[in-house]
């Protein structure tokens, strides 16, 4: 057993993990954070994507002990107290959800992309999501959703700014 300290969705944990355990198993089996999906177990499909220290990783390619000391965001950590994250809202509004198995990974890859680049071109969106597969062939709408999310986030920022100036 190997003891690790890490943060999941802003909450700190100390757990003992089996040396051979992968991050995806830790999240799903131990923490029951089942929004993280496993599709291929070899880093091809991106369904198990989570954000680790600000960057996306495929949790099927990360050993649990490698998460020691890190800060992890899963799909469950995206929702806000007052409802959906703008990216989640955009996926709904754009019709970017079909079977839904790729959706959590897609949303998290979109978040990592938009955190870095708030106004990506369609080409940049495609590149940013290139590690996430959708077998329902819903890519166009997913790209639409990320573009829409970028708009929502900007609106939110300007709303926030005007609210602050009013104060």
């Amino acid at each position, binding site marked *: 057993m190997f003891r690790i300290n890490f943060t999941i969705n802003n909450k700190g944990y100390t757990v003992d993990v089996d040396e051979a355990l992968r991050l995806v198993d830790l999240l799903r089996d131990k923490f029951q954070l089942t929004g*993280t999906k496993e599709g291929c177990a070899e880093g091809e499909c991106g369904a198990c994507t989570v954000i680790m220290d600000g960057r996306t990783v495929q949790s099927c390619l990360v050993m649990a002990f490698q998460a020691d000391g890190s800060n992890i965001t899963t799909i469950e950590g995206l929702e806000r107290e007052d409802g959906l994250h703008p990216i989640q809202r955009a996926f709904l509004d754009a019709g970017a959800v079909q079977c839904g198995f790729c959706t959590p990974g897609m949303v998290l890859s979109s978040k990592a992309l938009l955190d870095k680049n708030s106004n990506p071109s369609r080409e940049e969106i495609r590149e940013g999501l290139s590690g996430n597969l959708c077998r329902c062939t819903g890519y166009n709408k997913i790209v639409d959703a990320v573009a829409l999310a970028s708009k929502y986030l900007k609106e939110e920022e300007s709303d926030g700014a005007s609210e602050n100036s009013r104060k």
Partner: protein
Amino acid sequence: MEPLKIVGNREIRVDGMAKVTGKAIYPQDIFLENALYGYTVRSTKVHAKIEVDIKKAEEIEGVVKILTHKDVTGMNAHGVLFKDQEVFCSQKVRRIGDPIAFVIAKSQKVAKEASKMVEIKYTELPAVFDPVEAMKEDAPIIHDTTNIRYYYKCRKGNVEEAFKKCDVIVEREYKTSMVEHAFLQTESGVSYVDKEGVINVCAATQYPHFDQLEVAEGLGVNKEQVRIINPAVGGAFGGREDITLQIHLALGAYLLKKPIRMTYSREESFYAHAKRHPIVMKYKTGADKNGKLIAMEATLIGDTGAYASWAINVMRKAGVHATGPYEIQNVAIDSYSVYTNNPYCGAMRGFGATQVPVASEQQMDIIAEKLGISPIEIRLRNCFKVGSKTATGQLLNESVPLKKCIEEVQNKLF
């Protein structure tokens, strides 16, 4: 008229909220207390008689039970059209990946380890992988009598006479490949017997009502004693129309009265479900010098692999669509589904209608090239319109906007 509430409006899908938040429950997201774990032992040979010995595996600590064909309480057979698949192979295996035994253990790790200890003695039989070879009389027989599972015949006009009148005849052979659905969510399920004695199977499926029947038959119980629960399904595309793990799980839960769960790895998923039929397509198409199609002859040989699944529907549809969307007065189509020792084939997006355009459309291009007319022009001259009759005699009496569609494409392309 009052404005419509749904049609013409963009509706948010009912399961959308659950899916964008990660809360949607797929079978692998269900954790039942004290659930046992199942693992399937599969054949590693393409065609062989088998003898199974589970003694060593049973002795491993943590193994609860190992199911084989001897444990099947009902009918050891299933299949959407023909009951040609066994729940567990009893005498012989017909492909790599055929289920032979099902290890039920206290953990996934133990189940998987124990599965390696199940001893299978194979006596290999001659095998066949090419559907054309499999049709020959001396080919190894995969099921009972002949490997030709289905034959579809379509005749219109007089092909022989019509070819004599053609200015150009193109004869070619085409082959498509086997295709895997690769839905993102691999097969997974849980099964348990509830207080009322009902056997519940929760698995992502395309056919809950049909699964109910097949599970009941496999277990030898009334249909009412089986409940199929269909949670969120992570893609299917036809690949979840056949039984995979449903009967295995149900049988385990029924015999042990304990919940059982399992999830296939991607590799096992590849073994477990049907594929798209590869089809060998021999085409002979003739036209006059103006590019008007006069005659077409097609032989379609679909490889359905070790089991039939939806082979009949697939190869019938391939036959029906063999002309493509073009009017031809003289047509002869022969379409076959043939057993081989390959992975089995069944439903996948398009059901046979997807494969034939590979041949029929290339024939059009080649004829156009030979006659020196454009690929667009030859299609416009022959395409279905209102009033056309298909090769099967169907009168198309409304809404055939193909010509308009081709013209739109032409306008956008050139």
